[in-house]
C-alpha cells in the first residue's frame, strides 16, 4: 500500500476513561471484527487484563477504512498499557505512531495519567485528537472538559470530538479525524531497514514475536535480522500484521506496523525499544530512545511449601521469557528458606507477576514487603546497591545511603489539598508546585522517596479524597537520606525477612506498629516470647506474646482414641505450615504485617 494511505495511531487515556471500549467500537465500525465476534476489550487478551479492566501488554490491529473522501486507508491502531509502571512501553508504542487519540472522560476531566500520557505523546511529536468520551452520562460536562483541554493542554477546543464509545456516538468522526489530521508515515523503502520494537512476546511455536513499526527499509519473510542493541541475530520465521490475530504476509514496508516471528527463545534478545535491522545490510544508527528495562521495586518471593522451590524457579524463568523487565536472583532467608529476590517495574507489575505465578503455575507464595534499590557507599569507598534490607552493611561501615526519589503528579479537587499535603508530608514529600487548572481542580507536584510511595500511598490518596484524586509518577533521581535498618527480633533472634530500611525519624513509630501487629499475629507459645524492634543494638519497641496457657482436649470421647489422635495430628500439621525461627513458630501472615501497617492503626 502507498504510504500516503497509511495511518498509525495510538489511543491514550487515564484509566477507566474508556480507551478499550473505544478501540472495540473502531474495530466494529471498520468491520475488522463483526459484532458477533465482538467481546468486550477485544485487545486485552490476558484474563488478568479483562478482570482488572486494564491493558498490560501493548496490542496492535490493522483496520481498513473507506473515508468520506472515497479513499480506502489502512489504519494501524496500537493499544498501549494504561499504567504508569509501564510508562516506558507506552512511550515506545507512541514512538511507533504519528498520531494519538487522547480520550478524556466527559465527567472526570483531565487526570494525572491523561497528562502523563499527553507529555509522552508530545515528546513523540504526535498529532493529537482529543476525544471527550462518555457524553451520554447524566454527569457529563463536555463544555467544561473542552475548556480544560484548551487551558491545560493548549489544544483548540473545536478540534475535540464528542463521543460515547459505549453508545457508538462519534466513532465515524474519530476515524475521519484520524485520516485527515494524522500525517502519513514518512520513510524510504530503499534505505537500510530500521524497525522499532514496541513490544514482544514469547510464543512456544514461533519463538519471540516482535511487534514493530518499520521506520525505514523493508522486511521480507526470509531475511536474516540483527538487533542493534543486543546484537542478537536470527532468521525471520514469518512476518505479518494484526487483524487482530496474526496474519502472515510477504513483507513489511516503511511506515507499516506488524510483527516478525524471530525464532529467538527469550524476549531479552529482542527488547522493547530496540531497533531491528537486516544482518546483510545493517543500518548504521539505531533509532533513538532505547532504554533497558530497569526494575524499581524489589521483593522476596518464597514458596509456602519449600518443596515448590524448583517449580517457582521454572515459573519465573518462563515468565521472564515474555517479560524482559522481570529480574530475579536466588535468595536464602533464615526465616523463609529458599526463594527469589525479584525486581519489578512497580507495584502493579509485582502484583501481576505474583498473581500469574499463583494462577498459571498453581504456586502458593509468600511475598515479603517491597523494597527499593538503595545505593550505599561504604566507609572504605566501595559503592554497592542494596535491594534487600537484610543485605545492608552494619551502620559503622556505611558512609552514606542514597535512595530513589520520584516526581509525583496529583490531580485533585481543591477541597482535598489539605489532607493531601498532610499525607505527602508524612511521607517525606517535598513540595514543588501547585496549579489551579480550574476553579476547583488543582495539579500538585512533589518530590517523594519511592520507598514512601510503595507502601500504601496510592490507597491513602484514594481514601482521603473519596477516590477523586489521581496520581502519576516518574523517577527523578537518587539522593542521600538519613536511613536506618529496622530489625525485628523474635525471642531475641533477628528475623531477616522482617527487616526493613526506614527513615530515621520514622523508625520508632514503625517499629512500634510492627511489634504491635506481630503480637497479634504470632500465636502463643509454650513460653513468653518477646518481640522487639531494634535499630543497631538499640531496642526501640517491645511487646510480649504471653505464654500459652491452655491446649488440651478436656472432653470425653467414649473410647474414641483415634479421634483424639486425629485432632492432635491436625494440630501438628497446622504447625508445619508455620515457619520455625529459633524455637518460635511464626505464621505466614506475620511476614506480611509490614504491608498492612498504615497511619490509621
Amino acid at each position, binding site marked *: 500500500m502507498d504510504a500516503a494511505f497509511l495511518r498509525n495511531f495510538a489511543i491514550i487515556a487515564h484509566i477507566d476513561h474508556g480507551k478499550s471500549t473505544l478501540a472495540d467500537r473502531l474495530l466494529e465500525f471498520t468491520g475488522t471484527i463483526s459484532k458477533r465476534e465482538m467481546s468486550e476489550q477485544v485487545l486485552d487478551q490476558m484474563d488478568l487484563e479483562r478482570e482488572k479492566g486494564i491493558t498490560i501488554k501493548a496490542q496492535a490491529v490493522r483496520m481498513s477504512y473507506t473515508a468520506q473522501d472515497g479513499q480506502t486507508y489502512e489504519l494501524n491502531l496500537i493499544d498501549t498499557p494504561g499504567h504508569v509502571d509501564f510508562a516506558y512501553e507506552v512511550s515506545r508504542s507512541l514512538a511507533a505512531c504519528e498520531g494519538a487519540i487522547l480520550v478524556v472522560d466527559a465527567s472526570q476531566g483531565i487526570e494525572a495519567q491523561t497528562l502523563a500520557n499527553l507529555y509522552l505523546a508530545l515528546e513523540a511529536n504526535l498529532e493529537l485528537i482529543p476525544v471527550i468520551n462518555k457524553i451520554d452520562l447524566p454527569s457529563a460536562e463536555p463544555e467544561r472538559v473542552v475548556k480544560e483541554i484548551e487551558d491545560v493542554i493548549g489544544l483548540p477546543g473545536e478540534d475535540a470530538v464528542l463521543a460515547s464509545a459505549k453508545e457508538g456516538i462519534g466513532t465515524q468522526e474519530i476515524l475521519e479525524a484520524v485520516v485527515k489530521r494524522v500525517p502519513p508515515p514518512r520513510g524510504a523503502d530503499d534505505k537500510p531497514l530500521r524497525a522499532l520494537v514496541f513490544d514482544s512476546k514469547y510464543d512456544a511455536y514461533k519463538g519471540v514475536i516482535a511487534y514493530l513499526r518499520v521506520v525505514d527499509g523493508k522486511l521480507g519473510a526470509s531475511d536474516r535480522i540483527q538487533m542493534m542493541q543486543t546484537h542478537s541475530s536470527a532468521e525471520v520465521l514469518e512476518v505479518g500484521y494484526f487483524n487482530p490475530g496474526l496474519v502472515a504476509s510477504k513483507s513489511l514496508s516503511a511506515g507499516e506496523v506488524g510483527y516478525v516471528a524471530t525464532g529467538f527463545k527469550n524476549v531479552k534478545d529482542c527488547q522493547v525499544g530496540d531497533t531491528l535491522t537486516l544482518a546483510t545490510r545493517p543500518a548504521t544508527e539505531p533509532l533513538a530512545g532505547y532504554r533497558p528495562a530497569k526494575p524499581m521495586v524489589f521483593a522476596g518471593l518464597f514458596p509456602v511449601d519449600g518443596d515448590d522451590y524448583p517449580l517457582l524457579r521454572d515459573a519465573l524463568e518462563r515468565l521472564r521469557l515474555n517479560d524482559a523487565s522481570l529480574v530475579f536472583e536466588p535468595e536464602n532467608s533464615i526465616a523463609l528458606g529458599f526463594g527469589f529476590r525479584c525486581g519489578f517495574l512497580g507495584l502493579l507489575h509485582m502484583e501481576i507477576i505474583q498473581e500469574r505465578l499463583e494462577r498459571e503455575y498453581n504456586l502458593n507464595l509468600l511475598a515479603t514487603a517491597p523494597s527499593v534499590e538503595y545505593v550505599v557507599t561504604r566507609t572504605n569507598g566501595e559503592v554497592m546497591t542494596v535491594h534487600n534490607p537484610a543485605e545492608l552493611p552494619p551502620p559503622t561501615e556505611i558512609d552514606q545511603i542514597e535512595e530513589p526519589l520520584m516526581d509525583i503528579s496529583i490531580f485533585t479537587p481543591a477541597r482535598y489539598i489539605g489532607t493531601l499535603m498532610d499525607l505527602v508530608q508524612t511521607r517525606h514529600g517535598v513540595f514543588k508546585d501547585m496549579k489551579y487548572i480550574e476553579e476547583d481542580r488543582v495539579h500538585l507536584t512533589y518530590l517523594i522517596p519511592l520507598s514512601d510511595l510503595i507502601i500504601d500511598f496510592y490507597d491513602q490518596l484514594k481514601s482521603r479524597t473519596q477516590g477523586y484524586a489521581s496520581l502519576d509518577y516518574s523517577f527523578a533521581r537518587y539522593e542521600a537520606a538519613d536511613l536506618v535498618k529496622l530489625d525485628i527480633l523474635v525471642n531475641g533472634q533477628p528475623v531477616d525477612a522482617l527487616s526493613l530500611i526506614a527513615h530515621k525519624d520514622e523508625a520508632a513509630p514503625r517499629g512500634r506498629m510492627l511489634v504491635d501487629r506481630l503480637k497479634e499475629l504470632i500465636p502463643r507459645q509454650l513460653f513468653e516470647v518477646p518481640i522487639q524492634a531494634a535499630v543497631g543494638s538499640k531496642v526501640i519497641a517491645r511487646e510480649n506474646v504471653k505464654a500459652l496457657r491452655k491446649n*488440651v482436649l478436656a472432653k*470425653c470421647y467414649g473410647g*474414641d482414641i483415634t479421634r483424639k489422635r486425629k485432632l492432635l495430628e491436625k494440630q501438628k500439621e497446622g504447625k508445619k505450615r508455620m515457619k520455625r525461627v529459633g524455637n518460635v513458630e511464626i505464621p505466614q501472615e506475620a511476614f506480611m504485617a509490614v504491608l498492612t501497617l498504615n497511619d490509621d492503626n
Partner: protein
Amino acid sequence: MNVPVERDVERVAAEQSGTAESLAADLASISLYLHVPFCHTRCHYCDFNTYAGMLGHRESYVAALAQEIQLAGMRARQSNGSPRRCRTVFFGGGTPSLLSPEQVDSLLHATRQAFALDDAAEITLEANPGTLEKGRLDALRALGVNRLSMGAQSFDRDLLRWMGRIHSPEEIETAFAAARKAGFTSINLDFIFALPGQSLATWAETLERAIDLGPEHLSLYSLIVEEGTPLFSWVREGTVHPADDDAAADMYEHAMTRLAAAGYGQYEISNWARAGHECRHNLTYWGNLPYIGLGAGAHSYFGGHRFAEERPIARYISRVRQSVAEGNTTADMLPAGAIAEDEAIPPELEMAETAMVGLRLNAGISRSRFAARYGRTFEQVFDERLADVREVRLIETAGDYIRLTEHGRLLGNEVFARLLPDSPEVPEAPTRVAG
C-alpha cells in the same frame, strides 16, 4: 479448712496406671462399653452418635445389642475356650437412662453369659437427671448397676437452657438425692465449663453446689465447638463467641484448687474422685488396655486393632443380624458385629498412644511397665521428641513415673502431639469395611 487426704502416692499410681507385674493380667481382660444412642432431644453442643425421635426403636436395638454381646463374647474368648474376663461395664450414650430396667437387665444378662464378669465389676450407667424416677433407680441398683454417672453440666439455669438440656438445676439435686436413696454409693456428676457467657463466678457457684451434693466423682469437660453441631454454626455465624483460652484456663485452675481443698483427688486431666472411686472403666482407656465397645458407633481396642461400628441405628441393627445369622465365631474375628472402620495399630503408634493416654493420668506412666510392655524404655522412644517440653517443665520424672506437671496438665496437647510418629505408618483414614 479441709486437709486433703494424704495417700501413698506410689500405691495410688500403681492402682491407676498399673504395674509391670499386673501387665499380663491387664492385657488379658477387657472393659465393655455398651452404647445407647437414644435421646429425648439433642443438646446444641453434642456431636456424639445420638438420635432424638427414635425412642420407638429401643426394643429392637436392645435385642440386637444383646445378640452382639453374645457374638463378641464368643469371638473374644480365650485360647483355651473359656470366656474372657470383663472387669467393667459402662452404659454410655446418648441417654442410657431411657432404657427400661428390663432392657438393662437383658443386656447385663447377655454380658454375664458371654464374658467372665468379675463379681466386683464396676457397672456404670449414664443418666440424664431429667429421666430418673425413683422406681427406675431402685430397679437399676437391684440389677447390679453400682455406679451412676449423671450429666449435670451446670447449675446455671440460663446456661442449661442455652445448651438445650432438658433438666433444671433443681432436678439435678432431686435426682441425686433419689439415687442416694436407691443405694448408689458411687455417683459421678459431669460438668461443662468454658461455656459462652459463663463467668468465673457462675462457674465457681456451679462447683460449690456440686461439692455440696458430695458426689464421689466429678468430670469437668471444657466446651469443645464441634463441627456439625448447632453450636458450630452459631460460632461461625458470629452469634456465639466461645470463651477464650485464658478464661477457660482460669476456670480450670479454680476447679483444681477448689476440688483439692474439698478432698477430691485429681487423677486425670478431666477427672476428680474421692479415694478409691476413680472410674475403673476410664482407667482402661488411659492405660491403653483392651476394651470392647458394642452398639451403634461404639469404638473398640482389641487384638491390636481399633475399630468402630456402624453409626446409624437401622444399619447397625441389620449388620448385627447379618453377622449373627452368619454365625462366624472364630477367635480371629474382631469381636463386634457391625464394624464400619478398622485400623491396625503398628507398634510405633501403639507406643505413642500408650504414652498419649497414659500421660493424661496425674500418676503418669510407669516406666517399668512401659519397658515390660514394649521391650524399650520410654526414654529411648520419646526423650528426643520431648526435650523441649521437658525443658519448659510440662513433664517431669518422679520415681518410676513420668507425668505431666501441674502447669503441663493444661497444655497436654503440646506434649501429646510430640509423641505421635512424624511420617505416619498410620494410614490416612481408617479403612472402611464393606457391608
